[in-house]
Structure formats: C-alpha cells, structure tokens
C-alpha cells in the first residue's frame, strides 16, 4: 500500500523536525558555549517581548472578568469572581494565550531572521569558516525561548490578575487586599506547577519550530516569508497539542 503524497510529506517533515530537535540535545551540552549570544537572545526575545505580553495580559484579565461577571451574577456567585479569574488565567488562559502571542512575535522573527541568513548564504559562511552555525544560531535561540517564555507567562499572569482586579472594580468595589487574598487562597501549588512546566515546553517548541523553518528556508525572499508564516502556524498548532498532552498527564497524576 502506498501512502498519499500529503501523508509522505507530513511524515517526512515530522522526521526532519525530530532529527533537528535531537541535534539540539547533541549540541546544547557540549562546549563551546555561546553565552554572549545566548544573553543577547534572552534580551531580544524576553525583554523586547515584555510590552506586548504585558498589554495583552492586562487586557486578557480585564476582559475575562467583565465577560464572566454577568454569568456569575446570574448564579449569585459574584463574590467568587477572583477565584474563577485566577484559576482560568494561571492554569490555562495565561500560558496558552501568552505562548500564542510569543509564537506570533518571536517564532516568526526567528523564522524570518534565520531564513534570511540562509538565503543570503550567511549560515553557509559560518559553516565554511569552521564554526558551528547550529550551536550559535539554533541552540542559543531555543534555549532563550525555553527560558524566557515561563518568565513572560509569570509576568503576564500577574498583570492579568491586576487587570482582573480592575475588572471586578468596574461595577463593584473590592479592596486589593481582599482580591489578592482570595486569589492566593484559591490557587494551589498543583495549579501553578503544571502551568509553569508546560510553558517551558511551549517555549522550546516555538524556538525549535522557528529555527527549523528558518534554517531550511528556500526559494529566496518568498521562502523567507513562507518560513516566518509556517513557523507561526506550526508552533501554534504544537502549542495546543502540548497543552492537550500536559492536561492529560497532569490529570493522570491528580493535578487537575
């Protein structure tokens, strides 16, 4: 039986990404370590994403609270609004929405940057000078996305919760102390830990897919655009798949 062409392409691509990922683990733990470039990438990927992540986090918390209020009011549990908002933001909405925005900004940027370097032979130039472009370009970026996304998610969650506080106060009056105490009382270690763990996986996926697409960019400038675009699409899909798997696994271990 012969596989359809699209299936062959799918498995071929999946195999290529797997090999590319395996190569990361091969290169990441062997000297020479590119600390300077890693630091630069953390700054570019983490610090420069902060305003966008903060803004979307704030709006997310505010809007979520405003949308939930009527239903909560209908069931007479308006007082539980901080509980529901904090659980929703910390466990699911914060990590996933932040990761998707991160994929849009950082994943496409990495795809375009490496794609551009590929088509202008800059990656080949590194290779022929006897240096390791994978270590310099891919390992540093993937390590930076893996470490920076969790930090951004924690900040985004915090800003979202503040947005939620303002949302609660639009049509009611609640003190900050009361709000935050309610949030702390609601959130358990088992809510925070799986959410943080999956953000490392999201960050790794965004970096790896962006680098893979850029590193294998073809067909000139058109290929660069395509790499950036497909990096966002694929990493967004992978984020949802990882989320699904992590929720199932944490459920098995009784974290849900």
């Amino acid at each position, binding site marked *: 039986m012969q596989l359809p062409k699209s299936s062959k392409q799918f498995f071929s691509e999946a195999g290529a990404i797997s090999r590319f990922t395996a190569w990361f683990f091969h290169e990441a733990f062997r000297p020479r370590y590119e600390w300077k470039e890693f630091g630069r990438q953390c700054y570019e990927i983490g610090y420069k994403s902060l305003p966008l992540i903060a803004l979307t986090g704030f709006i997310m918390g505010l809007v979520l609270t405003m949308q939930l209020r009527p239903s909560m009011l209908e069931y007479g549990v308006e007082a539980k609004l901080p509980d529901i908002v904090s659980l929703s933001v910390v466990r699911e909405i914060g990590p996933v929405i932040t990761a998707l925005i991160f994929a849009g900004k950082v994943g496409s940027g990495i795809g375009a940057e490496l794609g551009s370097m590929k088509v202008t032979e800059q990656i*080949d130039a590194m290779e*022929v000078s*006897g240096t390791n472009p994978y270590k310099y370009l891919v390992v540093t970026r993937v390590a930076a996305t893996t470490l920076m996304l969790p930090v951004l998610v924690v900040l985004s969650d915090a800003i979202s919760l503040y947005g939620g506080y303002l949302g609660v106060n639009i049509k009611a009056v609640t003190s900050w102390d009361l709000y935050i105490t309610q949030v702390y009382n609601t959130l358990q270690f088992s809510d925070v830990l799986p959410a943080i763990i999956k953000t490392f996986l999201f960050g790794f996926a965004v970096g790896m897919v962006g680098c893979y697409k850029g590193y294998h960019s073809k067909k000139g400038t058109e290929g660069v655009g395509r790499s950036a675009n497909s990096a966002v699409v694929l990493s967004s899909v992978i984020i949802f798949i990882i989320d699904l798997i992590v929720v199932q696994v944490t459920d098995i271990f009784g974290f849900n």
Partner: protein
Amino acid sequence: MAQQLTYPNENVISIRGLKKYFGENKVLDGFDLDLGKKENLVVLGRSGSGKSVLIKCIIGLLAPDSGQIEVFGKDILSLDHQALDEMRIRIGFLFQSNALYDSMTVRENLEFPMRRHSIDLNEEDARQRIEEVLDNVGLSHTIDMMPSELSGGMMKRIALARTMILKPDIILYDEPTAGLDPVTGKEIITLIMDIRQKYNTAAIIISHDMKCVKATADKIILLQNGKNYKEGNYASFIGSDDPYVQQFFE
C-alpha cells in the same frame, strides 16, 4: 573503502571523477582537477555548469554523489565533522553574495571566525590581526560600520578580509568580480594577486570576467556538461581554434 589516491606532491587539492546530480540534472559528471601550491586555477563555464557546485563540494557544503576530493592529501569526504572544521580553517571561501553577517559590525564579522578557532590569540593579537586584514583591503576606517552602510565593492573587500582572517592556505573565490563596476572589479583582482603574493595562497577562482581570468589564472579549466572540456594556460585558450572556447574569449 576509499582508495588512497596518489598525486604529484605539490598538489594541495586533487579531485577525481567528481559527480553531483540534482535529480536528472548531471551538474558534475566525472570532473577532475589538480591545484598546485601557490597556483591560481580559474574554472570557466556557462552559467549553471556546476562551477559553484564544485567549490561547495570542496569545502563540504554539498556532498557529491561519487568521486574523490583530496585536500592536503586528506579525503574530504571521509572526514568527520570536527576534522572537516579543522580542514576548513585552511580553506577560505569568498561568496559571490559576500555573505557578511548583517547583524554584526565589520569588527564582529572579522572576529567571528577568529574567536572560535584562534583561542590562543590574546586580545592584542586579535586586534592586530583584524587591523592587518582590514589594512590589506584598505578599509581600516570601516571597522565599526554595519554591512548595510557599505557599498558593494566595500562589502566584497570586507568579505575578502574575513576570508583572510584565519590565514588560509587555499582560497575559493566564487565570482569575485561579479556585479562590480570595472574599477572596483580591477581593485578586487589586484587584491587577489596581492593576497597570493603576501600569503602564498593557492586559489580556485570561478569567474566569467575575462579581465579577472587574464590577470589571475595560472591555469584554466573549462567545464562543459559536468566534465573537463579543456585545460591549459591563458595563452592556450586565447589561441584555441575551438568555437566553444572562443565564445568565452571573444
């Protein structure tokens, strides 16, 4: 197991029966080449005849389908990644597109390969090496500029300086004067000759520019259909009655 080839001792590169196909397209189909010490070899051929593929096979950017490539007596195709990287230090490669790292300054472009190999160089030695290669190409003042601030000719010269930073024994030039005005092209040709004079390098030069061919070639190989069509010095090509050869020298 690859058969150990024997060549005249003076050869720094020896290629036998090199084949590289892209699907049905036989780009290289049994190509042979010998490059002697301090020799400048020009490879001529029509566009798409496999000249750039040839030098990319030599440097290990492309894997040939069959054939043997020996550089300094070592079979390139049997080297592991580390050994290949060490070999690449001895081979400079000037890209047609220059391939300068556009997110780095000129200084960082030059430092990049050096920092990763010459770990015994202290700060002062590294600085001197950068100044030396920039001085060689006459662009010392561009050290803190970005590639986007340079003209085409300046970029080519900086790319040449980067190629020289590790002091290679062989340089592979991929159309070094392509896209440059005649004056700048002449400057690049002069630089190629100066580099050979100063560093005793051997070189393979891919070029369509007959001024470049005339000025630089000790030996010329004309490629056709992936095979050696004619070999000889400039005079033998100029004096050839072969219509195909004459097309290049009209």
